[in-house]
């Protein structure tokens, strides 16, 4: 038993990462795509066939070709795309952390857990297998593999089994805040000494059945189907809605003590986090944030991190390319109480990969740590025609990849349900 169980002054570092992104499958490919400003948004024939208004999206490439390098045929009989994305990113994250190779015969690792969130993932199995058979009265023909694919925790449960995890293994869901919330909660678990390590982040598959509801709401951009790489336009005056994305982004959070004891490579540190909601009050609703809630969330994360507004060198925004972009930046301005000319640099990873929903926070956290570790800020594409409301902040917006010598990047996510999450990442310094 760990006698210092309740100590909460532990430092929590990042020792591994895994990413399956629309513009790069695998961590190295994702890093290169971020540096080069490569868009992962493409025209999707299936969306045209189904009469979607928005017919472009972000889907990781090459996953089908590599999945047998990660999973047995027997595993794949009961794995949908959501589970495959999470599984590959999780195994990559484990390997990247330098942890020993595991097999079905290896012992349970009681020191590691996982919080892997998903928004609407698993809908492909529900739509393509479950509903058609049930509606035809063929329940008997469903077989044994449906439940383990449609339960929300399928993504964490499968990875937990593959890696033999013995800590808490769970799945959270809080719409577009999901991935960020998973990391925030896992951070607390490690910080308070409940576990040495947690794999944390988010995953979302690429099913039209996930994206259809957003298309029906008219919150997807349906005006750029012929120009896919220009379709995701956060902060642009011509932004007309977000572009759906998919993938998985996972981090290995580890106590500094554990990381140092095994000589692990350290990418960076999480100083603090906060998750809250706005209660659907003061302008907040199921689909819009209460600005006061956002401001409190950011300030609480800074307070926990023991940093002031001037210490934040850059922000990886939520910034989806809806009407809410300028409100988001105004909320940051309120939270930091800085003049526009003193505002940190800000970029939107969604400009490159679209909005990966439950995976967004995870993938964007990986992007944030890559930027801190490798000293760059990636381009925020397609906002050369900045929204007039953001003109005061034009010097802060990263249009082209630039060298970054700062130490702290804040990552925020906001989701349907009026939920907010904020993480404060710091470049690794002993």
């Amino acid at each position, binding site marked *: 038993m760990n006698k210092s169980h309740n100590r909460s002054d532990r430092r929590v570092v990042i020792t591994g990462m895994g990413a399956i992104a629309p513009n790069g499958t695998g961590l190295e490919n994702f890093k290169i795509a971020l540096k080069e400003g490569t868009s992962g948004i493409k025209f999707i024939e299936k969306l045209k066939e189904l009469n979607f208004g928005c017919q472009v999206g972000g889907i990781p490439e090459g996953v089908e070709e590599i999945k047998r390098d990660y999973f047995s*045929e*027997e595993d794949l*009989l009961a794995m949908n795309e959501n589970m495959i994305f999470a599984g590959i990113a999780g195994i990559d994250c484990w390997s990247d952390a330098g942890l020993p190779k595991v097999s079905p015969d290896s012992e349970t690792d009681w020191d590691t857990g996982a919080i892997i969130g998903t928004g609407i993932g698993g809908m492909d199995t529900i739509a393509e297998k479950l509903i058609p058979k049930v509606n035809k009265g063929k329940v008997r*023909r469903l*077989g*044994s593999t449906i439940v383990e694919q449609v339960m929300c925790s399928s993504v964490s449960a499968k990875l937990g089994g593959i890696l033999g995890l013995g800590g808490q293994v769970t799945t959270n869901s809080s719409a577009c805040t999901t991935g960020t919330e998973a990391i925030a909660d896992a951070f607390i678990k490690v910080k308070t000494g409940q576990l040495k390590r947690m794999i944390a982040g988010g995953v979302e598959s690429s099913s039209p059945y996930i994206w259809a509801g957003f298309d029906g709401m008219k919150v997807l951009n349906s005006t750029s189907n012929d120009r896919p790489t220009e379709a995701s336009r956060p902060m642009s005056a011509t932004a007309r809605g977000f572009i759906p994305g998919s993938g998985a982004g996972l981090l290995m959070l580890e106590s500094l003590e554990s990381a140092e004891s095994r000589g692990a490579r350290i990418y960076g540190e999480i100083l603090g986090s906060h998750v809250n909601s706005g209660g659907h009050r003061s302008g907040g609703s199921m689909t819009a944030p209460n600005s006061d809630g956002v401001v409190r969330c950011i300030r609480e994360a800074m307070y926990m991190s023991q940093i002031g507004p001037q210490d934040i060198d850059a922000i990886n925004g939520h910034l989806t390319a809806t009407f809410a972009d300028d409100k988001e930046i105004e909320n940051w301005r309120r939270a930091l109480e800085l003049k526009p000319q003193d505002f940190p640099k800000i970029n939107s990873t969604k400009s490159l990969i679209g909005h990966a929903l439950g995976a967004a926070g995870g993938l964007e956290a990986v992007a944030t740590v890559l930027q801190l570790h490798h000293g760059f800020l990636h381009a925020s594409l397609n906002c050369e025609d900045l929204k007039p409301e953001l003109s005061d902040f034009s010097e802060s917006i990263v249009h082209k990849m630039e060298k970054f010598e700062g130490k702290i990047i804040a990552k925020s996510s906001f989701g349907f349900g009026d939920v907010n999450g904020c993480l404060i990442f710091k470049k690794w310094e002993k």
Partner: protein
Amino acid sequence: MMTETQVFDKVAGLIAPYAKNPDALKTLSKDSKILEDLGVNSARLVDIVLAFEDAFDIEVEDEAADEIWTMGDAVSLINSKIQ
């Protein structure tokens, strides 16, 4: 009309994807236990029976499916349905 050997080989092919112990497929006999020897997850027996039904165009009642323990049990049951 299929011979018993043909049925056995077809059953082996249908069970193979579910075997976590593929080495046992090399020494398969009528006495091979589907769960213990082949390492099939017990939940997957449902899927294997569905595969039998599709491949041999038969219907296997739940009670009969519950009596399938070995390769030989499966072959006997299927033979009784297709003859």
